[in-house]
């Protein structure tokens, strides 16, 4: 077996480990039990959940007050998913190469935004003091992944390096803050449910 072949298998294995560990983490989380709501609802939980994932995402004051960070955050997360898609495309369908013209700008922009977020975290005193080492490391790790993914679109010979970093990244995901990739959605769902049934979110009240 070639080195590339071995690394491709290890990449898939590492991704599978990451997925399995995340599933374990999720099952561990749900083992704490669900909170049953016993109070009579005053609003529509469904509307609250729709709000939480729709208008509620855009109406946040954090969006209005920090628009560059918000747009940068969307770009960054979009680029990460694009990077993963690019990686799996490269590993699983090496004969049908990914459309490089589509991936290049996204990956490059994502890496730039990621680096700027890292600089912001290091430069702002309160943000720096609030952060733990994982905050810096995870950000840097993902930025390196995006830079390598972009570099690979230009220099295909970098594939072993990209795969090696990807293997480490997948192994790290369940251990550090990157795990929020799942938990964000669950937290947002619970937010919509909890305040939607109280009628406290716009469009969720049964009364007014």
């Amino acid at each position, binding site marked *: 077996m070639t080195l590339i072949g071995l690394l491709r298998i290890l990449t898939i294995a590492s991704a599978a480990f990451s997925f399995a560990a995340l599933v374990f983490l999720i099952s561990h989380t749900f083992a*704490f039990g669900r909170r049953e709501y016993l*109070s*009579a609802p005053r609003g529509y939980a469904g509307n609250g959940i729709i709000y939480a994932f729709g208008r509620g995402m855009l109406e946040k004051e954090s969006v209005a007050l920090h628009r560059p960070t918000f747009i940068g955050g969307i770009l960054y997360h979009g680029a990460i998913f694009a990077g993963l898609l690019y990686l799996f495309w490269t590993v699983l369908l090496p004969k049908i190469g990914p459309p490089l013209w589509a991936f290049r700008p996204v990956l490059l922009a994502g890496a730039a935004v990621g680096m700027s977020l890292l600089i912001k975290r290091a430069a702002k005193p309160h943000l720096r003091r609030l952060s733990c080492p994982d905050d810096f490391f995870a950000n840097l790790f993902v930025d390196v992944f995006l830079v390598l993914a972009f570099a690979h679109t230009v220099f295909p010979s970098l594939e072993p390096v990209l795969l090696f970093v990807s293997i480490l990244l997948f192994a790290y995901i369940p251990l550090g803050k990157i795990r929020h990739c799942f938990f964000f959605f669950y937290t947002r769902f619970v937010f919509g449910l909890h305040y939607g049934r109280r009628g406290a979110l716009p469009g969720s009240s049964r*009364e007014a």
Partner: protein
Amino acid sequence: MELTPVKKDPYEEKLQHLTDADIALILAEFRRRFRSADVAAVHTCVRCGLCADACHYYLTNGELEDLPAYKLNLVVGVFKRHFTTAGKLFGRWTGAKKLDAAMVREWVDALFGRCRGCGRCTIKFTTGINIHALIRAARGALAAAGLVPPELQSTVMTAVEQGNNMGIPRQEWLDTVAWIEEELQAETGDPQARIPIDAKGARLLYTVNPREPKFFPLSLLAAAKLFYAAGESWTFSSDYYDVTNYGLYSGDDAHAGLLSDRLVKAREDLGAEVLVLGECGHGFASTRWEAPQWLNKRFPFPVRSVLEVAADYVRAGQISLDPSRNPKPITLHDPCNLVRLGGVIEEQRYLLKKAAANFIEMTPNRQKNYCCGGGGGQLAMTRYAKRRLASGRIKAEQIRKTEAKIVVAPCHNCIDQLTELSREYKLGTEVKTVIEVVADAIVLPRKTSKS
């Protein structure tokens, strides 16, 4: 010269001499309170710091310790360290924090002294993590070890031991109601006007903040006038009329449940159809939303705010209002527990638009409204009074910009804080409840006025 020995603060003493058993007790209670949504929150916060602009403490004080994410991470950090594998293995790398005496002290300062539990960071910022609920879980864990600041704890215990948080003796309550009944008769010109006490089978059981009989009896008169004008069948309970529940703030579910259960049983004993909560933000959140959880049962009866009831009267034409009787410019403060966390958002606006000639909204308002700084047990915890007043600066500026002469707040904790803010920041505003404004605008039926 003989020196007088300095009296030691027993609370400080306790904090200085925490035992391993205390820490174990705190951790056990902390763990017991976590459900899947709370654990998910532990893994959700990425410490982006965007919640900073949500918090009136941070905006007015600007210390790192005021940042919602900082307070949240004190709580979830301890959970990570003690109850997650990554936290146990990698410790500080992942932000995990060991609960020791220093951390307990930090918890007390940050969670009791720098958080109102207003929920603004949850609703309008971040990813929707229920930050105030996690902070309450930690407060509850401290309560299990007897570490609630004593001024707050004594408010809880006064209610538990004496039936209301002001320690009003039963006879004083009955005398006050009798006096207000006379005032109602004078106001309505109807000698038959009554304020019923323990009336079996009344449709509504009405509960109030004990500050009303103690300091603001005109609030009682306003509610009595409202029910009188609407021809409502209602009653007070002679024993359990206290809508407040400081167990919500101390985090102590057992006492909180006990206090709520008294209202539930009073309604049951009197056979009332509806439990109506007076103008009290945290009282509403406690009895309407939390009490079923504390008591682990569904309530087979409606629990409603008096604002909802009053709005129904207006909509149904049971009372008529003349807004010209309230000519001064009026603005409205949205109590966090009633509005942002409670869902009663439009009723008070509907009432004020009908009852006042010049109603002006604050900016921002409704769910986005800033906390006044009076809740979360802050008014009781005098040790944090300076912070409380400083954190109210944003609210004071909001009020000033409206140029209103009257600030209306459907919550007596807020009213106390807004009254202090008016003095502190020289606003020159009068503070009233919504029902007081509505009562002033009520047009009584002519035949009743004549009689």
